[in-house]
């Protein structure tokens, strides 16, 4: 994208919409590029994000939920925002139908540190809606020969109730694999739920992944992070080996507009992926 204007979105078609949860406010959108060269230029890795762009509404930075191993399309899982600030883009997106055209800019930001993760035991901890880029990472790591590049993979994923779990079909597929230690939990079970019940931090403690040669990748709501981190500290994980993804208001996504500035970093270009050790060096304003 060197010669292209980085502010102009590429046209895409919504080829599929998946209603993910019972509350119908989280949907996964599958986009196909209209121009082949755009698709070829959109080289991304798990953890990066894109700006979903609808003219007349604006742009919204969203993590990429698909894995680069899934060819021919990209997926974004989007929650309709608007509890406090009306989410213009996400509301409009939720009204759209398959076949509609819109725009994407990206890929933006830094990915999960795949090279660093190679050869290590990976512990993935996700909570609620923040599971999207972790899903990308998991699908990337378990794809074909990629799996050999990583050690054991432990997944701990929680939602408030069974109806709010994302990617239900994939969870079933992952559960069948022997090379994954999948732990899905809900805060509150319903009659049909046969899995674990309990909060993510408690499940982490129970599963107790070993710290040896291990990296924890954690994404979730602030309250989950707050109670999960101490568990990993107790397990002996160092701050350099706990990795997370920041959320910040972004506009341009390319480090120009100044909005996502935290200390001397821009979340959009220097992040959104940071290790806790890196975050410690940042000013605490995010």
């Amino acid at each position: 994208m060197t010669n292209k204007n980085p502010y102009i979105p590429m046209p895409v078609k919504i080829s599929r919409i998946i209603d993910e949860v019972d509350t119908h406010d989280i949907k996964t959108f599958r986009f196909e590029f209209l121009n082949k060269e755009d698709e070829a230029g959109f080289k991304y890795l798990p953890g990066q994000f894109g700006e979903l762009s609808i003219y007349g509404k604006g742009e919204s930075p969203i993590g990429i939920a698909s894995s680069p191993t899934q060819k021919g399309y990209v997926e974004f899982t989007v929650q309709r925002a608007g509890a406090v600030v009306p989410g213009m883009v996400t509301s409009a997106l939720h009204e759209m139908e398959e076949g509609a055209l819109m725009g994407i800019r990206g890929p933006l930001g830094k990915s999960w540190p795949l090279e660093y993760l190679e050869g290590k035991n990976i512990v993935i901890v996700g909570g609620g809606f923040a599971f999207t880029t972790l899903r990308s990472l998991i699908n990337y790591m378990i794809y074909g020969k990629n799996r050999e590049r990583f050690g054991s993979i432990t997944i701990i994923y929680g939602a408030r109730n069974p109806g709010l779990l994302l990617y239900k079909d994939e969870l079933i597929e992952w559960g069948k694999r022997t090379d994954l230690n999948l732990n899905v939990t809900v805060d509150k079970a319903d009659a049909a739920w046969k899995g674990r019940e309990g909060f993510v931090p408690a499940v982490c403690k129970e599963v107790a992944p070993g710290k040896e040669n291990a990296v924890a990748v954690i994404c979730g709501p602030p309250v989950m992070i707050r109670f999960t981190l101490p568990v990993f500290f107790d397990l002996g994980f160092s701050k350099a080996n706990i990795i997370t993804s920041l959320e910040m208001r972004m506009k341009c996504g390319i480090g120009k507009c100044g909005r996502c500035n935290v200390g001397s970093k821009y979340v959009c270009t220097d992040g959104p992926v940071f290790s806790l050790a890196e975050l410690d060096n940042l000013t605490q304003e995010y």
Partner: protein
Amino acid sequence: MLKKTAINKISELAAVLMEKGTLLAPVKEAAGFNFREISDAGQVNLHFHNTIISPKSAFFPQMEDFVRYQTGKSILEAAPVELNLKPVFLFGVRPCDVKSFEIMDIHFSGTGAVDPYWKKRREAATIFGHAFDLNEAADPAEFYHTLGIGAADPQGSDIFMVTKDNDLLFKSITPKGKKLLEELTMLTEASAGDRKYFEDYIARGHDYKTRFASVEPKAIATEFESIFDNREFWKNVSNACLSCGVCTFVCPTCYCFDICDETLFNKGTRRRVWDACMFTDFTLEASGHNPRTNVYQRLRQKICHKYSFSIRKYGVISCVGCGRCTRYCPVNIDIFSIVEQAVKAKWYKRL
């Protein structure tokens, strides 16, 4: 190359430049001077100290249109707005403001993604720098000297102008400036006396003191980092702050912007518009979370961005001491007083 003309013939020069392209020069308006596109050569007025809005608006206008679209129509019909610029002559820029372009270059085109708008506008422009009048007292708000910028520094300009009695001397600094100066046949050759005067003037510019003694810029970043969490300090210096956008809008090195879709009668434009870290909703996320809800956090962001983050990220202080923020602050907050206090903050023990 050094050339000259009489100051009262400035409108003739303006007319020539207007024929060659777009001329942006100081114009006297109700509240003071501002750089404007000149439509009448008589408007150019060099009897100014400095403009209200900095000349950054020549390269980074308050509104920059990206795309025109129509609601209800396909994205494929949206049309990017192409910048087709004639040569631009930015006339009468003060040395401190010239320096600001260099700092903004690092941000917009020197690191990471290249901002095509800034780059194109910058390439289209020829800058006529203009020394401050050394016989006039410095404005109390200014402090460019403190930041190592002389009142008559020609670096960064393509052509640099110095006033000598009733004449205006022009010296080419860059090849681009030299080429233009050669084309400006209405200017006359300067004498040897003029040349000496010019060189002396530039040297004198370094002795032209603005209000503060020099400080060590490199030390400042560290100082600010060490007091970032000193909430008491920041609350104290921001007690008066109204959290308006004046300081950032007049600043030559503030670059934050918003990207807005503005639609009327089904026709719209996606454009960038200046934004300010001092506004309450600057960091408000769609989730409702806002990491900077207090005035002190926003003022701290603004000052640390210029005097600490920028040094760490780009290696320069993102401030040129033009004094605009201080001059136009409704409650007289002075950025450099805060910097001074911060440097002393090690000893600043407040309960």
